[in-house]
């Protein structure tokens, strides 16, 4: 839904995500951050994932990754009650009766839903821990 070459706001959004994650992690290591992104949000998942690497680098969240769950846009017609997915073309008229009095009932989500705790898969080896050779090749502190 977005033309290439536009400046990105994902960087500043990652800053907001970092604040939320830091507060909820309370010092525990985080491996995966689950984020819901509605179709009507102009957040590009790949850009968000990439920006997260930049923003988290050098912080206690380094090595964690963002997992994006997309939420399709759906609307409900106030005239006839018909519920439909908006689809790829952003036309907000009822697909059934044609009324333009329709409300969006999903697709505007943008939230951190949960965190997976534990050392990041490719992250640093914590102090005092000994790599067991399963998953830590190339890891460093």
């Amino acid at each position, binding site marked *: 839904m977005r033309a290439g070459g536009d400046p990105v706001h994902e960087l500043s959004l990652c800053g907001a995500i970092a604040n939320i994650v830091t507060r909820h*992690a309370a010092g525990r290591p985080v491996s995966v951050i689950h984020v819901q992104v509605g179709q009507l949000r102009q957040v590009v998942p790949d850009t968000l994932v990439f920006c997260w690497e930049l923003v988290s680098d050098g912080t206690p969240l380094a090595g964690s990754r963002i997992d994006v769950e997309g939420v399709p846009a759906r609307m409900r017609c106030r005239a006839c009650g018909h519920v439909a997915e908006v689809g790829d073309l*952003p036309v907000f008229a009822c697909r059934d009766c044609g009324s333009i009095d329709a409300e969006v009932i999903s697709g505007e989500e943008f939230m951190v839903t949960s*965190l997976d*705790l534990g050392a990041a898969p490719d992250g640093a080896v914590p102090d005092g821990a000994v790599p067991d050779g399963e998953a830590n090749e190339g890891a460093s502190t």
Partner: protein
Amino acid sequence: MGRFHRHDDGTAHSHDDHPAGDHSHGHSHGPGDHSGYQTGPDRVEVLERIFDENDKTAAANRGSFAASGVCAVNLMSSPGAGKTTLLRETLQRMAGELRIGIIEGDIETSLDADRLAGFGAQIALINTGNGFGGECHLDAPMVGSALPRLALSDLDLVLIENVGNLVCPAEFDVGEHARAMVYAITEGEEKPLKYPVMFRSCDLVLVNKMDLLPYLGFDLDGFLANLRAVNPAAAVIQVSARTGEGVDAWCDWLRARLGEVR
């Protein structure tokens, strides 16, 4: 140094050695991977909106405007659509009638603010170029940081000229009472379908550069149909900031928004 643990039951400890039978903590943990410990799955439910922080500041900004009886309008567009020219025309018409403040978002320069000087308006410039990741939009904290530079109690109307961009500004509530966008007919009829979030977020769409209509193959009806498909409720005013056509209707719209706040 020991390894610090905090468990879901709230207990925390750190230790250096691993008891026999426990596995090393150097590798990745999946949910339920803590075989040596009595804990639940290692997933923390968060359910926190990522815009919460911005929106709380936006609410505070809105409160500051309301406390002074000021109406704030967020003006958005793509680069070059004519926001600054329209603002200059607006100041020329309204400066003697209403006390106007301008918050000017610009990536690097004060060029736009310079063009608006001399009309008696208070102008607060926000250069977004230095902000971390703040290069493409105004957010609520940026607008909040500009408020101390405006004497709100001496103002009626604050016009916030956002950074020229059809994507990012639509996502950020800055504490405005209404949103208007300037769309230039040189941009093409399909823009509402390409940038539906921006067009949906607006209370008013100013269709600018109407003086160029005779020279362009612009399909005005097609554009309006696309706009209606995306945002049936938006008001539309056709203007030419260059010739002044329609600018009085825009000023009337601003007066009406101020009337709603007071």
